[in-house]
């Protein structure tokens, strides 16, 4: 799945590990420590940011939104264990998160047991149930990757989603299953009454899960998952059964998907058919791919961006799904590495110390392009308003400007801005390309 190759043109020399491994003497040990710190840096920063975010955004809705983001992050990372690292395309992964979540809801409703455990460990049970289901399904679905795996996942996903409205005893029908998280054993006096308490619970779980999933990719079976993804036949002749490697990845992914379901249960205190259905499975595929499957942190970006689009953009426009679809399609067509791939494209230029070369050309091209695209969106919104707004309601507000959508002027203005913006972007694109090539070529920096 690694369509993007950031290292193709990597400069020689900048390879600190080489010395460490070949010559484990003292100076390199110091270096190893520094390297470890370097490796830990993103995690420490992420933890600090998660710790401090609620201090910046104090209102509940932002916290709710961030909770949703983190839940999606865990789920998307779990999904990427399959798609990105194991090369398995699943169309029914929501069921593992969903079943984990439903199990947590039932635990919440088992008052004797639930009141004897602290709420913080509940997601672990979600993980166990997700894992259990993954073991059952994985036992027959992981025999091959590719279309067979994808279609089995689709079929199983449809079956479980369909049974969610039939098997009322477990899935609660269309009303779902709801419970009360505050019934748990207080955790150091905390009953998790407020969203902010839940925020920290989810944040800790997110960091732990992300770290564990990252470490998983560094274990023997995690490495072999990549090997099997790239070349299952060769992996078999290295002593590994491709099927079992896939199975372990699948089960691990099911575990973390179940954890995300458990977090969902804690945050929303309700699970419904929606947590299982194919639409949710499709969304997680979009999220992961949008973020970029080739990099560990890709799904994180995807989860953040998608949640914002889904929740915040939908407050602004009815057409949010249209924009989301367009964004997604554009990503697949032009940046198959996803948003993470887009970011990582710049690493070589950074390493060469030439990233500064890109700033001016970027401003020259991307700013007009962005303005042009916004103008196109304005045209779309105006068309929509013109066609679907109430009769007599000619007034609309776009980008802080209120105007009459039934007069010619706004249309001309928007069309002109679109034409000029995109025109400039098009005219300056060659020089951007030139700058790009220059910034990625080794040699004297100008």
């Amino acid at each position, binding site marked *: 799945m690694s369509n993007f190759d950031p290292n193709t043109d990597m400069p020689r020399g900048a390879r600190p590990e080489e010395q460490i491994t070949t010559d484990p003497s003292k100076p390199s040990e110091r270096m190893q420590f520094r390297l470890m710190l370097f490796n830990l840096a993103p995690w420490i920063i992420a933890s600090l940011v998660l710790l401090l975010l609620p201090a910046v955004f104090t209102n509940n809705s932002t916290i709710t939104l961030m909770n949703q983001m983190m839940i999606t992050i865990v789920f998307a990372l779990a999904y990427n264990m399959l798609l990105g690292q194991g090369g398995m395309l699943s169309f029914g992964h929501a069921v593992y998160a969903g079943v984990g979540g439903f199990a947590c809801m039932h635990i919440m409703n088992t008052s004797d047991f639930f009141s004897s455990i602290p709420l913080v460990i509940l997601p672990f049970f979600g993980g166990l149930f997700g894992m259990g289901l993954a073991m059952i399904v994985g036992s027959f679905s992981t025999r091959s990757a590719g279309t067979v795996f994808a279609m089995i996942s689709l079929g199983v996903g449809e079956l479980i989603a369909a049974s969610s409205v039939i098997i*009322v005893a477990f899935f609660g029908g269309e009303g779902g299953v709801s419970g009360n998280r505050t019934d748990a054993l207080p955790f150091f006096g905390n009953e998790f009454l407020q969203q902010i308490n839940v925020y920290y619970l989810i944040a800790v779980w997110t960091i732990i899960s992300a770290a564990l999933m990252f470490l998983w990719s560094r274990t023997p079976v995690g490495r072999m998952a990549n090997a099997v993804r790239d070349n299952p036949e060769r992996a078999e002749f290295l002593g590994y059964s491709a099927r079992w490697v896939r199975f372990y990845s699948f089960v691990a992914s099911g575990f973390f998907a179940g954890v995300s379901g458990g977090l969902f249960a804690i945050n929303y205190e309700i699970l419904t058919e929606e947590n299982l259905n*194919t639409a949710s499975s499709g969304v997680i595929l979009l999220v992961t791919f949008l973020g970029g499957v080739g990099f560990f942190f890709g799904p994180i970006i995807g989860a953040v961006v998608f949640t914002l689009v889904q929740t915040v953009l939908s407050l602004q426009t009815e057409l949010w799904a249209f924009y989301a679809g367009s964004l997604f399609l554009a990503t697949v067509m032009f940046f198959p590495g996803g948003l993470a791939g887009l970011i990582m494209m710049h690493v070589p230029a950074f390493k060469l110390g030439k990233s500064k070369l890109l700033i001016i050309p970027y401003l020259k091209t991307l700013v007009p392009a962005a303005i042009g695209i916004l103008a196109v969106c304005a045209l779309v919104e105006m068309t929509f308003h013109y066609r679907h707004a109430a009769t007599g309601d000619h007034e609309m507000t776009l980008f802080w400007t209120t105007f009459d959508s039934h007069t010619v002027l706004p249309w001309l203005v928007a069309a002109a801005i679109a034409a000029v913006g995109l025109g400039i972007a098009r005219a300056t694109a060659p020089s951007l390309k030139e700058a790009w090539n220059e910034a990625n070529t080794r040699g004297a920096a100008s």
Partner: protein
Amino acid sequence: MDLILVNLIDGLVTGLLLFMLSAGLTLIFSMMGVLNFAHASFYMLGAYFAYSISLALGFWMGLLVAPLIVGLAGAAVERYGLRRVHQYGHVPELIFTFGLALLIEELVQFVWGKNQMAYSVPDVLNFTAFAISGNSIPAYKIFMIFISVGIFIGLLYVLTKTRVGMIIQAALSYPRTVEALGHNVPLIFMGVFGVGTALAGVAGVIAGPVLGTFPGMAFVLGSIVFVTIVIGGLGSLWGALFASLLIGWMTTFAKAYNIEMSNILNGLGIATPENLDESLFRDFWSLTSPQIADILPYILMVLILIFRPAGLFGKRSS
């Protein structure tokens, strides 16, 4: 007995309709390796275009023109979208079609709004063709059967008796060889994609009046088309036909006869639990076949994939 005959006819209609979609999809899939998730969206476009055309020019012009527009749209999607994504591999291609399906649904809502369209059967065909012991068979159904059978025969003729068909058939099994033989494979791809989507368009045009024309119509049909070609075996037109009819009849009969799970279980010698209302499996015991009719194809697909990954008629498993 009479009801069996009626159900056979109904199942045939459902199956043939499914076949029009799966035929195009299996052509596209076996040739290009693309699981086209947007296939049912082209079916929806067919219905909507036909509706709009029928308002101005009548149903028959819709039947004639709408599939052509859909085919052109499909070819354009291949030329300007898929071909670009093709270089990145199959997964991005698949995801591209996935996103396309979402976008088409949004576009349809943008243009036509979110309501059901009043697209209905033309007056010429709006009568009862014949009745079997009180069950009327609408003439439109007969018309649907004729159209789909006609298309199948036409497709079979093109594929087996013409040079283009030979090339396509060869490309189904040996895409690389055909390319090596100097045929313009990108052009063939575009053509096959266009024809495949046009077939889906025809299905939309004739199904729209009976099954409803609304933004969710693609979603309802969506994955079942894949299930059909997977069951039939990828790359096999006969497999697609067989699986379509199988699914058509299977779901029709499951809906038509209330077979109860408790009867089956009792028949197997398992006694009904005494306090069924408290049993964890109460919902399982009270299952009836109409409840699960539409998920039967999924069960069948999973079983087939486990025991015969290449599908019933397929030779390749991926």
